[in-house]
């Protein structure tokens, strides 16, 4: 699995997507290193300042440095998105392949559970969890990870069932190879592109969901920096200082657009 070979197999659009996605990622981690201070330091005197030498991205309505606030917000979004996607990928893949290997036992139970959970739109899940523990981050996390896991499970299951019926599987079984070999040689290589695409999609969806939740003030409370929360906080000031509200919007757009381009087209 050569990274270079993989990268060169991507289309131009996909490569562009990777670049786009990397920009906010790098910013997220490098930004606090390059500038000192805290995203919560208020200074009402310096409110809504345009980008300057002191504040590279300007300040918000409470005088807080936008450079730092933006990177903090991206940390929240990316952090939740990446961890949830990781959990979802591991869990969903494992259960999906399991379902395909044991269609008469494990599958019946898992598939039924997954389909039942499909009855509730994801956002409702999260909102219900948030009602139990308002203002905390874990309902967000739990809800997002749960939805992502179910989606990954269904996709991996569907694809694994197709693979399970291929002649190559029967041939390998007859030759005496065990389940681990089948996974290594047949399932994973075949599943890998699909899982990667779905993972990128999941990260994108999660980032958007977190922003939406921040927008309605669920899961994240001020003064925490979060993209959606920042947008609604800055909305009243868009006329006098448009560059401020544009920042979280543009940051979110580049991040998710990059992911969407990376996904590419089905062959």
């Amino acid at each position, binding site marked *: 699995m050569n990274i270079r070979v993989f990268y060169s197999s991507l289309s131009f659009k996909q490569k562009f997507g990777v670049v786009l996605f990397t920009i906010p990622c790098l910013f997220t981690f490098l930004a606090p290193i390059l500038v000192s201070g805290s995203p919560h330091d208020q200074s009402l005197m310096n409110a809504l300042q345009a980008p300057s030498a002191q504040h590279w991205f300007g300040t918000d309505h409470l005088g807080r440095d936008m450079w730092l606030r933006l990177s903090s917000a991206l940390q929240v979004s990316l952090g939740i998105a990446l961890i949830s996607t990781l959990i979802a990928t591991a869990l969903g893949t494992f259960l999906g392949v399991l379902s395909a290997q044991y269609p008469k036992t494990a599958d019946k139970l898992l598939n039924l559970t997954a389909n039942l959970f499909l009855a509730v739109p994801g956002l409702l899940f999260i909102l219900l969890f948030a009602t139990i523990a308002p203002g905390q981050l874990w309902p967000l996390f739990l809800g997002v990870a749960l939805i992502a896991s179910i989606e990954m499970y269904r996709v991996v299951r569907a694809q694994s069932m197709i693979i399970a019926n*291929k002649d*190559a599987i029967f041939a390998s079984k*007859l030759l*005496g190879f065990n389940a681990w070999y089948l996974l290594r040689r047949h399932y994973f*290589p075949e599943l890998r592109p699909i899982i990667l695409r779905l993972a990128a999609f999941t990260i994108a969806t999660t980032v958007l969901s977190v922003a939406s939740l921040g927008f309605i003030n669920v899961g994240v409370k001020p003064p925490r920096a979060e993209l959606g929360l920042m947008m609604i906080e800055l909305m009243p000031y868009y006329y006098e200082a448009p560059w401020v509200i544009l920042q979280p919007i543009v940051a979110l757009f580049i991040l998710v657009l990059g992911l969407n381009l990376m996904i590419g087209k089905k062959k």
Partner: protein
Amino acid sequence: MLNVKNLSVKTRDGNVIVNPVSFKLIAGEALTIVGETGSGKTLLAQAIVNNLPDGLIAEGEIYLHGQAVHSLSTQERNALWGKTICVLPQEPTRSLDPTMHAIRQVKEGYQIVKGLSASEAKKQTLSDFEAVQLSHATNKYPFELSGGMAQRVAFLASRSGGATFTVADEPTKGLDANKRDDIAKQLRALADNNEGVFTITHDIYVAHQLGGRVMIMRKGEVIETGDYQQVLNKPLHVYTQTLINADPRRWKKKASKDNLHSPIVTVKNVSKSRGDKQLFSDLSFSLRPGQIIGVSGDSGCGKSTLGDMLLGLLSSDSGSIEWSNQQSEKHKVQKLFQDPTDVFSAHVTIKASFNDLMHKYSISEDKLLGLLAELELDAQLIDRYPDQVSGGELQRLAIARVMLLEPTFIFSDEPTSRLDMLTQKTVIEALVNIVKYKDVAMMVVSHDKPLLDNVCDELIML
């Protein structure tokens, strides 16, 4: 009816795929083009019909009913479809709209293409359906029709425009003997009715049944052309002779020796049904090392099921299958599959797949090289990926892999149905040789009865 002068097919950059060819077809005549994959025969037909794939263009003159078709615009040429040129579909079931009743798919041809009134079109369609014993199927959806019924509906639909020049591209692909004969008769009837029939096929037997004239093609060139009896019985060209010899009917039957081994497996009174269909009942036979037993029958009759039962993948409803002292070594029973492209993992080289096996059972590389040599395979082939190797070579590689384990029994499920005639001969010869040499018992499933008659010591008909 059809007059073709110097017709060639090229890529847009100028690479010639089909060299200039000229021929005529008169009314009441059948012209059959015979060739293997890559001979260009399909492209030739597509050039005449005007549905070449993107990136390919045709050059030359084509006259249909005296009209210079080659100088018409694309739109004008496409307007000939249905009215002047009839193209029979290669896959009848897939050619029918899955959400539309059968009768409407024929009726719309009469109404829109031929221009009849709605009631006239309906009348004509109903009488058509009656003529082919499909009156009960008028309001059925395609998925409710059997393969044969769908073929008849598609046939009627393509003829509804009233064209008298018919192009049939591989009309008998993948069909068993009975269906193949039906279609050949259908086409022959068209010619007898003073229409022009232009057929493309790789099956020499179909060419025989159609009569008329035959054109042999190979790699974009016409090798030989003439009256079918002359070309197919006394060909002038070596290649034609090779093609003819590749027909299982022509294969020389090898003298069979008495088999003195004791049976490795005895099947007693075995029955199996699938759903409410009884596949077979009370079947008994035994297999000895080095013996080849054939199983033939129409599709869906349980041939594959029988083999899978012997492999231990399925169990019988009644009766018994007794193996002599081979029970514990599961991997001594092996299978060859119909589609060799799907048998090796597509993501690694063939060599990697072989290494997996040799590593697991501690088999030496010499053994592999020996097998490859016996199967007349270039050892360097295994460095490639499965999709870089031809079907015939891939099937032989599958044979090599199976033979590495020194199996006692091989179940070959239609091992050559997807292959060309020439390739088929090579593969079957290689398979039979190695099986007889190593005293492996084999069961072969095929819809090609002449092949089984030649190759097998015993035959089971289901």
